[in-house]
């Protein structure tokens, strides 16, 4: 445990003794428990400030960066905005929170974040904290810590925290567990520690709201802060796992060349190195959102959406086709016909 600084206030002439250095009790202001200590929170985007994928999703999956909403019922996930002054933490004005509106039916609803590497917090005591509420009544939900040893690794180990009872008012919930040791386990590729702030077994229609998710190596919850403490840090941390281009009409999505008169290949650089080479490309689903800019500023619409070809840690490549009109071998740009166009590269766990 960090024990420095061992003394908060110094006066001229004070002498820092060995006892000061070793004093871990009393009125010592440990960095670990201070509100602005860096990197104490392993949850990325815990304040729901980053939404690269958009602001609403009518199915299970990723919406808010790094968080996976899962259910077997009809569902709408969305970004909600706090009315100024109503965020649940005094002194920390959150802007957005996450909502999962589950319809009646199905059997479960959960929210998860996979923290890279199953070695994370292995053998340590951790505290998960978050602010949450539901739309009506009360609901008891579980909290889960899944040690997943990855492809080729040992069988996953589930550790269950205390159940928490959500109400219609924003409340901070905390649960403390001992994450099991990984001694004797086989760690495969892409292992992770999966955190479930809520894991509910329910067929009822219920709307979950959540903000301020934090996981720290401690036996009590300290004040919330994001994983990196900065806006740019949180975006970069998210983009290690997923990167989506933000475009307006006419934006150039990537540079490359025409491979034939009816198609081309383009490469897009990532703003940060990704966790692993991406294995998927997300697009809008509409071919006409995309075009090829070639020759003397000629725009030719695509007749199929861009397709994943390859990825590295720092760039991704895609192909697309047009009906005709390109000159094979010429340089060209993949072009956004409107603001619906995007390229999303995923290296999620």
């Amino acid at each position, binding site marked *: 445990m960090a024990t420095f600084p061992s003394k908060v206030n110094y006066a001229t002439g004070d002498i820092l003794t060995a006892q000061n250095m070793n004093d871990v009790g009393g009125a010592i202001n440990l960095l670990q428990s201070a509100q602005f200590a860096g990197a104490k929170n392993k949850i990325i985007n815990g304040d729901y400030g980053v939404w690269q994928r958009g602001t609403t999703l009518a199915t299970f999956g990723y919406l808010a960066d790094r968080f996976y909403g899962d259910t077997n019922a009809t569902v709408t996930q969305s970004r909600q905005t706090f009315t100024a002054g109503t965020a649940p933490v005094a002194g920390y004005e959150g802007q957005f929170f996450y909502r999962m509106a589950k319809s009646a039916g199905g*059997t*479960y609803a*959960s929210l998860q974040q996979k923290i890279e590497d199953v070695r994370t917090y292995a053998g340590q005591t951790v505290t998960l904290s978050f602010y949450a509420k539901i739309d009506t009544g009360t609901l*008891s*939900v*579980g909290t*889960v810590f*899944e040690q997943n040893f990855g492809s080729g690794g040992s*069988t*996953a180990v*589930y*550790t*269950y*925290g*205390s*159940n928490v009872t959500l109400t219609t008012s924003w409340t901070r919930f905390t649960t403390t*567990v001992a994450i099991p040791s990984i001694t004797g386990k086989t760690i495969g590729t*892409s292992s992770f520690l999966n955190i*479930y702030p809520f*894991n*509910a*077994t*329910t067929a009822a229609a219920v709307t979950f709201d959540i903000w301020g998710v934090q996981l720290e190596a401690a036996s009590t919850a300290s004040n919330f802060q994001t994983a990196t403490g900065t806006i740019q840090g949180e975006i970069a941390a998210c983009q290690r796992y997923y990167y989506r281009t933000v475009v307006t009409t006419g934006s150039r999505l990537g540079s490359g060349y025409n491979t034939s008169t009816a198609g081309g290949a383009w490469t897009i650089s990532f703003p940060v190195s990704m966790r692993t080479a991406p*294995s*998927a*490309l*997300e*697009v*809008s*689903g*509409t071919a006409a959102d995309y075009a090829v800019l070639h020759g003397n500023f000629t725009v030719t619409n695509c007749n199929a*959406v*861009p*397709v*994943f*070809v*390859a990825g590295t840690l720092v760039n991704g490549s895609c192909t697309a086709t047009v009906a005709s009109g390109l000159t094979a071998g010429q340089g060209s740009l993949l072009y956004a016909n409107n603001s619906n166009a995007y390229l999303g590269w*995923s290296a*999620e*766990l």
Partner: protein
Amino acid sequence: MKYELLETTFDGIKIYARIDDDGLTRVTCTEDNPDYQAWLNPKEVKADGNKAK
């Protein structure tokens, strides 16, 4: 939602298309993609809901 083999690249990598219920393709991926693998091999063990320590 389903996945279909879309093409094989010049270097032999199989590219799959995820075809959503509305018929649109919004994702293309390799066979290593976790979401494709999860669709191919549904997870047998899930965390127990509402289970307390």
